[in-house]
């Protein structure tokens, strides 16, 4: 039986990818960001899963305004790294797990979540930056990845409640997969940031840390928070945080199991325009 061993949460700032790719990781500005991931890289080495179910948002890369799926699951074999306008990041392409992805799609759709099934997909910084933060810069990624893209670009975006419920359905699906696989679920993006207008650069440190506290201790109550609170308090792009609730909803305690262990928690301001938040929760 496949099982979810841990969940990982991290911001996915494009400038982090650029800093790594351009060899700026040792500059003091970026050192402060990457220091928060030193433990994580070591933890990843010791806890490399077979598959990562990686929840992220596409930033107008694979999906233009021609097609705006609320939830899209990658069921393909191979995902090339996208050219987002400055050439593709020099990181390995991503290998999928089509069998598990198709199994999850089948199960979750039957649980009333309308996923869009995607076999051809280029992946952007939303997906590759978290991999770089957790694995560094290997010649190939050490495990398979199922991309799961959530629309947080065009409103309305899915509610926190729906994301949390979706996480529960994903956990159920994973546990019904016959092969013995260790699966991690990652929720990426977010912490406070606003990239637009006269309010650009908004950072709400207190709100972000309260979000982390509640995500750990009482995610069900947190999931009831309306969109407008994310936008007002954490900036227009802070809405990306709803994706963390998908990963959190897939943890064992939500289904009556023991509470997870907090293996690591990190928060830092700024990385480019945003606050960086990061959390590793292990299932017990």
């Amino acid at each position, binding site marked *: 039986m496949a099982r979810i061993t841990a969940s990982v949460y991290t911001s996915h700032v*494009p*400038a982090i990818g*650029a800093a790594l790719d351009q060899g700026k990781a040792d500059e003091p500005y970026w050192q402060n960001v990457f220091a928060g991931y030193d433990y994580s890289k070591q933890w990843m080495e010791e806890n490399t899963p077979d598959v990562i179910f990686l929840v992220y948002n596409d*930033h*107008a*890369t694979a999906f*233009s*305004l*021609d097609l705006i799926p609320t939830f899209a699951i990658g069921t393909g074999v191979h995902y090339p790294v*996208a*050219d*987002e*306008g*400055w*050439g593709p990041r020099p990181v390995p392409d991503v290998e999928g797990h089509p069998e598990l992805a198709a199994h999850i799609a089948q199960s979750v759709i039957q649980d009333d979540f309308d996923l869009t099934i995607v076999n051809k997909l280029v992946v952007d910084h939303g997906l590759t930056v978290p991999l770089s933060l957790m694995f560094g810069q290997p010649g190939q990624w050490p495990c398979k990845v199922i991309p799961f893209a959530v629309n947080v*670009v*065009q*409103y*309305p975006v899915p509610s926190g409640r729906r994301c949390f419920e979706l996480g529960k359905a994903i956990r159920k699906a994973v546990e019904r997969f016959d092969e013995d696989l260790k699966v991690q679920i990652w929720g990426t993006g977010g912490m*406070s940031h*606003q*990239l*637009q*207008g*006269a*309010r*650009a*650069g*908004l*950072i*709400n*440190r207190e*709100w972000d840390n309260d979000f982390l506290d509640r995500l750990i201790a009482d995610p069900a109550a947190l999931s009831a928070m309306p*969109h*407008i609170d994310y*936008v*007002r*308090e954490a900036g*227009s*792009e802070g809405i990306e945080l709803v994706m963390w609730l998908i990963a959190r909803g897939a943890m064992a305690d939500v289904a009556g199991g023991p509470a997870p262990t907090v293996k690591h928690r990190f928060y830092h*301001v*700024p990385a*480019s*325009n945003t*606050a960086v938040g990061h959390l590793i929760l292990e299932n017990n």
Partner: protein
Amino acid sequence: MALDKPYKDIPGTIIFDAEQSRKGYWLNQFCMSLMQAANRERFKADERAYLDEWPLSEEQKQAVIARDLNWCMRTGGNIYFLAKIGATDGASFQQMAGSMTGMSEEEYRDMMLRGGRSPEGNRYLGEDGDAQPERQPQGRAGKGAK
């Protein structure tokens, strides 16, 4: 009955909803085209000629040529799409976001290093924070331009 849009009262913020998306469809699709290196070269060689290949309004074309991202957003642009213009120009996301505040690049970067813009006074229109319409443009650079 009108749909609930509670986000209309946040200062300095345009939420990219279905209404904005419809208005900005071609502007944003033009931006997507810049994900191909050949298109970036054609755009850089003759911006006006490249823009004229797209069914944009004249105002949208002017906003792109001016690199005025606030103006682009008012005409339906979305920041994730508009970022392709910045990428084509070689601008960082921080430079792009900063350009929308009226602050100089240095002023904006320094604000971020000090912990970013405070939410205080910037949650609702009519408060007294630095993102309120009557406080624009911001920063020394903005004041000099007035």
